[in-house]
């Protein structure tokens, strides 16, 4: 059983991602902002993070940059889930160190497929 931290300011999206992941056997924790996400990661690092980009306060990119600057967390798989599908935003996500960049609205199967892939990569890296 792998744990996933879901970060999104929109409660409906959080509950959707939670339902999708729980149905696929993941353990889900939620954070409604970038700040909360960092606190949650610090208190107990998840196996994977699914994070929105456009959030009040710290954005998903900010949080990702912060995570990547920490030696322990620089390999933590992070999947960005963003409403912005333009090239500029996508590249910003990849450059910040995202392991995957999915756009909303997203296909639940695609999300779980990517998470499976990321966990496999993670396991291989280990």
């Amino acid at each position, binding site marked *: 059983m792998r744990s996933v931290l879901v970060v999104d300011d929109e409660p409906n*999206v959080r509950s*959707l991602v939670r339902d999708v992941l729980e149905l696929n056997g993941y353990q889900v924790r939620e954070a409604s902002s970038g700040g909360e996400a960092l606190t949650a990661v610090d208190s107990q690092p998840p196996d994977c993070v699914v994070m929105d980009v456009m959030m009040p306060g710290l954005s998903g990119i900010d949080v990702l940059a912060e995570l990547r600057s920490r030696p322990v967390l620089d390999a933590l798989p992070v999947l960005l889930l963003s409403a912005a599908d333009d090239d500029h935003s996508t590249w910003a996500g990849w450059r910040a160190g995202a392991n995957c960049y999915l756009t909303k609205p997203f296909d639940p199967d695609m999300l779980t497929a990517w998470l499976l892939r990321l966990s496999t990569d993670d396991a291989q890296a280990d």
Partner: protein
Amino acid sequence: MSSPAGTLRVRGTVAVTVCAGIVGVAAVTVVPWSYHPRIHATPIWAAILLALSCVGELAYVRMRHGTSFEDLTVYEAVVVASVLLLPPAAAMLVPLVALLAASAILRRRLVKTVFNLGSYAASTSAMVAIYTALAGGQQPFSARSVGAVVVAAGAFAAVNLLALATVLSATEQSTLTSVIRAEWRLSAFMAIGNVALGAVAVALAMQTPVLLPFASLPALTLGYAYRAVARGADERARTGHLVALGGMLATGSPPERVLLDVANVVQQAFDASAVRALVPSRGWIVTVPDGADRATGQVEIVDADGGDELGMVQLQLVLGQRSGVPGARPWQGKPRRLSDSEKALLTSIVQMLASAVGTAVHAHALREETAKLASVVENASDGIVVLDGRGTVVLWSPALAAITGRDASTVVGTRSTRREPLSTLAEVLGATVVEALPPVDLTKALRPDQPCAAVALTVRRPDGDERHLRASVSALFGADSMLQKMVVIVHDVTADERLSRLKNDFVATVSHELRTPITPIKGYARLLATRGAAMDDEQRSRALRVIEDRADHLSRLVDDLLLASKMSVDGLGGIPMDLAAHDVVALVRHAVGGVSNIAERTVLDVPDGELVARCDPTRLNQCLTNMLTNAQKYSPPATPISVRVWSDDEAVTIAVADEGRGIPADELERIFHRFHRVEDPMTMTTDGTGLGLFITRELARAMGADISVVSELGVGSCFTLRLQVLPVAASAA
């Protein structure tokens, strides 16, 4: 005699002259002169001399003095003969009587006749007195008597010249000395000629009367000389008029004015009583003097083809009526005909006139065109700058002054130090080029075969303001392919750019707003479809609830967008309003109840009874919902939202106050603008399209109400909606 002062001077001169004449006549008749008894002093001789004097005065040659005329005659020769032949009193009276008779025949004006009589009385009496005193008892043609007659004739000429100069200086507005300087040679010449003629005639009559007809030879010579002098004066005057004419044709006056001026000059130059200038193709007829009766003289028509689209220009001269009282027939009733040389001159004048009128018409059209262009430049909303080949600003339109903040007076005439037109332009505009699209070198891009270019410029003004300009550059090249002028039309698209950015922001916002609810809808729908069987009841019902709620949200969003677009397209006319009297208190309660999660935060302060105002309940509910959800969105979850309703004589007022973050002062008006959001759409913390307050205010205005806001940063905001109270009669109904 143009001015009243001139008329007075002339009258004074005439009076003095007449007095001098009376004194002279009295002196000559009263003084008991001792003189040599005249051999031919008989009444017959007196009668002959009277007749000759009269003829001498009638056969005049008219000579011009500016606008006045002097008559040159052989009258003086007859006076000399009278002095030689008659006793003093008779020698003086005979010529005066002859002069009176001649003036009557010529119908001279009274003032001229009186002046002439006075002047000749004075000069003749001087001549008689001097001759009689000097010659004494001597025979005519002794050395002494010849000397006496020469001196006496000199005195006659001198007195005459003085009188003439005095009256001419009055009429011509010149000084006495200048007239004397101009006239003394002619007077001396006349005196000598007349003495010779008179003396020769008398000598012949006394010695060999049969040779008397030969005395007409010096008379003819004198007459011929007079004509030459008169013609010379005419030529001088005409030359003066032609010089004036040249000046007039070069003034660039309107064509009608040119015609009038030329007609005036032609009238004076050709001594015409009237001149008409016609341009038949234009229907222009100018008559000088205005309203002259053409029937009194002969009209000579000189035609000349103007040689352009103006067609024919005509000058019609009325000639022949040369003196006398207007209306009276002059004695030389025959109309004067133009000489061949005058016709040639007139033809040249007509040709000049035609070309001058043509030029004047073109100049006039050009001036009108220029004025039109100037007004186009003045009123053009686009800025226009014209640079010459060396980069000197020659034109700077008012619109450009508005765009650049630099006035034409400070820019026109300044010269750029740059060679590259774009840099020149930027320097002229007083700005630095931030970006140019396409990034071309206009020095190379502008060529004689390709003289136009369009550039989108972003420039920064000295005050730091960045402007987006679209410049159309047109270059004018000379024959040597050198740049002669550059015309740049500058269109300030800064406002368009701002609007476009606002729209882009709006599109980004709207797409975000639309996509946000779609994510859970689509995600849950897909989840239900693929994994529905694996979900428990609670998960399924949550999924359906989220789908429904988000779909409602989407639907409201789409409604807002449609409403806003209707407002932008049709103004308020696009929104149907159902205005009637309604209880505002009940509507406020209903609105609060309709917003989820707000009831527990709301502090309602409303009166117990009804407060009736004019509104559309559906639209008012929309306004109130917007105000309430804004208060909810922009304030922390636990803080109270106060809703107050009260009324005064004019309005029912609804106030919604929150304890949120507040609105910066410079945003207070703009929050009601379409698409405007206080936050950057990419980093905003709250959702919304930037349409809520715009829609609210437009709806409020459509109901005759208005919405206003007061706010303090960190303390909160209070939105106030004032609805009009219905008149009593209407509310009762």
